[in-house]
């Protein structure tokens, strides 16, 4: 029986899995509760938010695939005893690594431009016994071409056509399947349903969702056709595929955006409710605590924590076995630090909301009935704070993803071996001043980060409008949507 690869559970893997599970529970809870369903309804009717959700789901999928780690079994050594324990590779792979095996292992020696078959810089090679300066062929990019000068463009066009065609086909199939499913449940003819979707007459903006999914499928199809033979976004200084690095960075960004927000919640909720409910000296003490924390400029406070954590990690090598685990300990601690230093804003909001709630009649009634303090806080106050928590959490996600890049630049972000958008920007700084500039690293980081942050922002905007009635008044409206005078 072949030995199974050994699963590796990194701290952030577990946290991310728990988070996804909690998200699933929340979705199930929303579906069951009519009030919550009604509150969420505007979000699901918003075309921009739903399109953003499609993009976000794709990013989450990439992050989830990159969060299942394992160490494969090494082939049995010659002459080893039959019952010897299986040896495991010292490298840890994720499911994403295995799916993208070819670009991951197809490293070049140094920079190469997107889709190129020649290296970025000239090297001295020997031709007929004489040294010649020329652009050498890449080891993997376009290696299958016999006469690249002639074949490169036709090959690229043929692959593009194939990929885009495949993507288009998949998009059409998906659209047909969705329309058919909807026609089936609503018991209307397929053509009517398709027309309703096209004319934006459906409750959920299916046209926008399907169009976004279609564009994504086209891109995925094109990349899938090109990637096996070329480096779609070139290679970086050490010859690693840039698109692969960017996909790996997605996980780092998602982990920081979600786990750091999660880490703020216990402090913010506990302290916010305590301060607002008990008032008096408890309130004074908690206010003092968060004023102290927020009076230190954010980057400096985080830098101070991270410098200390770094010394601590170096002192405790027993916490990790491999370099990846070491980097992961640092990533996890960075999230905790962002949580410990970042709870002041949410805490202030929750305190104010609790102050308001604890004066309301139903809380007074609960008090008169002799419900314990803990019971009132848990059953009557906490559930009514959830909308504030939700709004702040979704707004923080995109801010944290942007913040990670700045922290990495300052040198207090993720471990240098962890792929992240911040380290890509860092490299891009020197690369753009080369001549000709190496622009693909910057482009990759920019496109991926913009897609992630923009969709998070659009989704967060819709969530805020749904949960905060005041925010709805400021939505840009076109004149035609107003009633005629």
């Amino acid at each position, binding site marked *: 029986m072949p030995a199974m690869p050994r699963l590796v559970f990194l701290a952030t893997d577990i946290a991310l899995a728990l988070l996804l599970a909690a998200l699933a529970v929340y979705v199930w809870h929303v579906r069951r509760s009519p009030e919550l369903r009604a509150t969420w309804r505007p979000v699901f009717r918003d075309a921009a938010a739903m399109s953003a959700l499609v993009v976000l789901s794709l990013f989450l999928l990439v992050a989830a695939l990159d969060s299942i780690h394992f160490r494969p079994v090494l082939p049995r050594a010659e002459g080893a005893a039959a019952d010897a324990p299986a040896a495991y590779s010292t490298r840890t792979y994720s499911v994403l690594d295995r799916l993208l095996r070819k670009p991951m292992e197809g490293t070049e020696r140094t920079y190469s431009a997107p889709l190129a078959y020649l290296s970025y810089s000239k090297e001295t090679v020997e031709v007929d016994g004489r040294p010649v300066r020329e652009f050498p062929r890449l080891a993997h990019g376009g290696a299958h071409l016999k006469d690249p000068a002639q074949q490169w463009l036709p090959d690229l066009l043929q692959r593009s056509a194939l990929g885009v065609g495949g993507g288009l086909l998949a998009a059409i199939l998906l659209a047909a399947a969705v329309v058919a499913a909807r026609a089936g449940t609503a018991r209307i003819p397929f053509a009517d349903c398709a027309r309703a979707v096209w004319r934006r007459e459906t409750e959920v903006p299916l046209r926008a969702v399907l169009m976004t999914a279609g564009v994504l499928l086209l891109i995925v199809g094109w990349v899938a056709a090109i990637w096996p033979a070329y480096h779609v976004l070139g290679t970086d200084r050490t010859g690693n595929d840039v698109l692969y690095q960017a996909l790996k960075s997605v996980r780092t960004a998602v982990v920081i955006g979600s786990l750091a927000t999660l880490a703020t919640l216990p402090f913010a909720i506990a302290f916010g409710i305590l301060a607002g409910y008990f008032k008096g000296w408890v309130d004074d003490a908690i206010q003092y605590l968060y004023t102290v924390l927020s009076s230190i400029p954010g980057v400096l406070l985080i830098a*101070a924590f991270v410098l200390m954590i770094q010394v601590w990690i170096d002192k405790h090598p027993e916490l990790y076995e491999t370099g990846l685990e070491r980097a992961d300990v640092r990533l996890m601690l960075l999230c905790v630090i962002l949580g410990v230093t970042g709870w002041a804003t949410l805490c202030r909001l929750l305190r104010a909301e609790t102050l308001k709630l604890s004066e309301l009649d139903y809380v007074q009634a609960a008090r008169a009935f002799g419900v314990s303090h803990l019971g009132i806080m848990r059953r009557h106050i906490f559930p009514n704070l959830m909308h504030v928590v939700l709004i702040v959490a979704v707004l923080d996600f*995109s801010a944290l993803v942007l913040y990670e890049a*700045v922290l990495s630049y300052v040198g207090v972000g993720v471990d240098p071996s962890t792929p992240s958008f911040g380290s890509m920007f860092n490299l891009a700084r020197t690369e753009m001043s080369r001549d000709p500039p190496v622009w693909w690293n910057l482009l990759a980081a920019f496109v991926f980060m913009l897609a992630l942050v923009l969709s998070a922002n659009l989704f967060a905007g819709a969530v805020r409008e749904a949960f905060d009635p005041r925010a709805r008044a400021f939505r840009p409206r076109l*004149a035609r949507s107003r009633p005629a005078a």
Partner: protein
Amino acid sequence: MLNYILRRVAYGVLILVGVNLLTFVLFFTLNTPDDMARLNIGGKRVTQEAIEKWKVERGYDKPLLYNGRGDGARKFTHTIFFERSVQLFAFRFGASDSGRDIGYEIRQRIGPSLAVALPTYLLGVIATVCVALLMVFFRATYLDFWGVTGAVVLMSISALFYIIVGQWFFSNLLRLVPISGFAGGWNLAVFLALPIVIGVVARLGADSLLYRTMFLEEIGKDYVRTARAKGLSEAAVLFRHVLRNAALPILTSTVAVLPLLFLGSLIMESFFGIPGLGSFTIDAINAQDFAVVRAMVFLGSVLYIVGLILTDVSYTLVDPRIRLA
């Protein structure tokens, strides 16, 4: 009024004590000075003598809180806590771990920091208010819709991207301005033009959305309806009435930032090679110079607290209805 300010200052001092204790715990008890010495000297095999020498040179060889060998008050003054934390209240920052006088460095570097931060702030406020007013003036049109969309896109782009692309486009490609550096006199404008423009653009998206909200809040009020009812044009309503009334919340919301301008911007200064406090801090973080980081944490909180007090005072100045007791 004076009474109130005095009370706020006293509370501010209390906050600073908290900041000080926090940094002390963070820097000296979580890791001992020995650990810091090892990190600073570098390498795995550092002899104990080298560590002792490093500590003596920087005054980290004393006990943390209580010196049993001293006499009288020196039992407490000859400790790391007194020399490194209490002294900060007198703005005596001491020497950095690399041996330079931190106080002197700060005085030297505040000027360049302000030279970038102040114009960025002023131009930024003017530009964002103009953009927000335009969006409000053309509200319920495509201009408003695409303005908001554009602002959301702008704020979804990392500041690092603006800087890198700006430097590449204006310095490498067009060769309009030097890529980085700092000089006195008229050359200053040439060096500062790009960082200031990029600083304004990087904040434009988020801030103009915020100000647009403030203007729209103001526009729903009764006096605006009155102004319209008596036949004023929309432009007059907006620029004469709404702008003036909305300027107050906008100003009070940005007063808190004013003192922090002294600290400069970390990434701007390091990208453009401006010898301000921001690049000082980044260099210290990269060199793991804990003394400088501690000093900057303290300075930052002092400025933040000054900002809080200024905000409170500015409320009473612009709105006579608010009385501070």
